């Protein structure tokens, strides 16, 4: 066997790939499902937290800042492991899916809150004053005047952060979540051949390249037109 053939046999073994393709496809669906739930819940929670923070209630803001800083500082892997292996001692055993989803949602919510908050505070004070001087209430001003301007500024950092955190779904493999990487690794152990990992990498590319392209499109579309 030549070196080249050996390389192909190791990384692109057609037989092994064909055998484990259904597993990888299954893992891909798990990853997609997980990613969608993380993005929806994480960005939603981040926005809600930022809006609450805009109310300017001091003690509440300290709580929000503490939580946000906590989850921005902790490595996502640590949170996943803590939730999955730690919570059962407290009487609740989340599934691998739930533990991974919750961990990454908390991290995304924390970063999203900071990004939304930065957007809200960067809107000029005169916008608030103009709206309030016409009789708009605080909430109306926030929703109709400030938030639309803030969101434009947040699109670029938010999409980048979302992609970074969503890729973290691969961390679920440490708690035996059957997502792409998890399925690929077990296929490797069963077949003594790393080809399934190449399939897994391909699955990630197929999944995330369109997301990256769409993100770039969104960024151009929302670029501030002064």
């Amino acid at each position, binding site marked *: 066997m030549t070196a080249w053939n050996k390389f192909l046999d190791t990384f692109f073994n057609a037989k092994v790939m064909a055998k484990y393709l259904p597993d990888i496809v299954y893992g891909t669906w798990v990853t997609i499902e997980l990613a969608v739930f993380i993005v929806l819940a994480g960005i939603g929670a981040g926005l809600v937290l930022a809006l609450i923070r805009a109310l300017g209630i001091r003690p509440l803001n300290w709580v929000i800042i503490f939580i946000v800083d906590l989850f921005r500082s902790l490595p996502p892997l640590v949170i996943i492991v803590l939730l999955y292996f730690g919570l059962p001692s407290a009487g609740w055993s989340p599934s691998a899916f739930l533990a991974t989803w919750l961990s990454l949602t908390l991290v995304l919510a924390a970063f999203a809150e900071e990004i939304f908050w930065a957007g809200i505070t960067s809107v*000029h004070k*005169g*916008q608030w*004053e*103009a*709206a*309030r*001087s*016409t*009789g*708009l*209430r605080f909430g*109306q001003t926030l929703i*109709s*005047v400030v938030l*639309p*301007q803030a969101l*434009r500024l947040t699109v670029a950092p938010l999409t980048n952060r979302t992609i970074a955190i969503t890729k973290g779904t691969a961390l679920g493999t440490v708690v035996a979540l059957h997502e792409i990487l998890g399925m690929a690794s077990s296929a490797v152990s069963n077949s003594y051949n790393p080809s399934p990992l190449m399939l897994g990498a391909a699955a990630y590319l197929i999944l995330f390249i369109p997301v990256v392209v769409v993100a770039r499109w969104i960024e151009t579309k929302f670029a501030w*037109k*002064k």
Partner: protein
Amino acid sequence: MSKIVKAYGVHKHFGPLHVLKGVDLEVAERELVFVIGPSGSGKSTLLRCLNRLEQPSSGSIEIAGIDMLSPKTDINHARQHIGMVFQSFNLYPHMTALGNVMLALRKVAGMGRAEAERVAGAALERVGLGDRTHHRPAELSGGQQQRVAIARSIALEPKVMLFDEPTSALDPELVGSVLAVMRDLRESGMTMIVVSHEMSFAKNAADRVIFMDHGVIVEQGPPAAIFDAPAHERTKAFIGQIRQH
């Protein structure tokens, strides 16, 4: 003539700074009052206290019969009747001219879309921008933006209009269009309080000029008296300075 603005003993502190030191201001219906004074004299703060964009430290303010400082007053309702125009226009950049004017009509005055559109269109027509309704602020000149801002206020049919240096941010050739709109408002009988240094406009249009310095009203009177024969040294010095520009 009945007084529509009654402010007495208004004080405002910003931390250690005592910006307003007991200002009394009465404005009659249909009166146009000009407020002049050096920067830091408290004239803008006084204006902003009137609609409570700034909370006065003490004093009493009543506008169109509404006690502005009472905790029982619905401040949002009260503000609907006090128009305010800012130096920096503060138009909503994500909305068209029409959208800028319509927002408060819909959210505050509670109009339906069609009615708000009609009223907003009429207001823009009145400030000479009937052909610019679907332009965004970025597509308008400074003078046009400020006229949209005026339309945004007058569409709500305010009882008093506050102008905070409405022409200071404009290129000289655009000032005239804004002043023309203000003159039109004046002729329609709008009560106006204007912080501005547009002396020739003040001479033609103002009923009264107030000179403020260091948080107090130093003197006030008809424009001719204040501009041509001020009684106080500080007023003299200030008028001399703005004349040179």
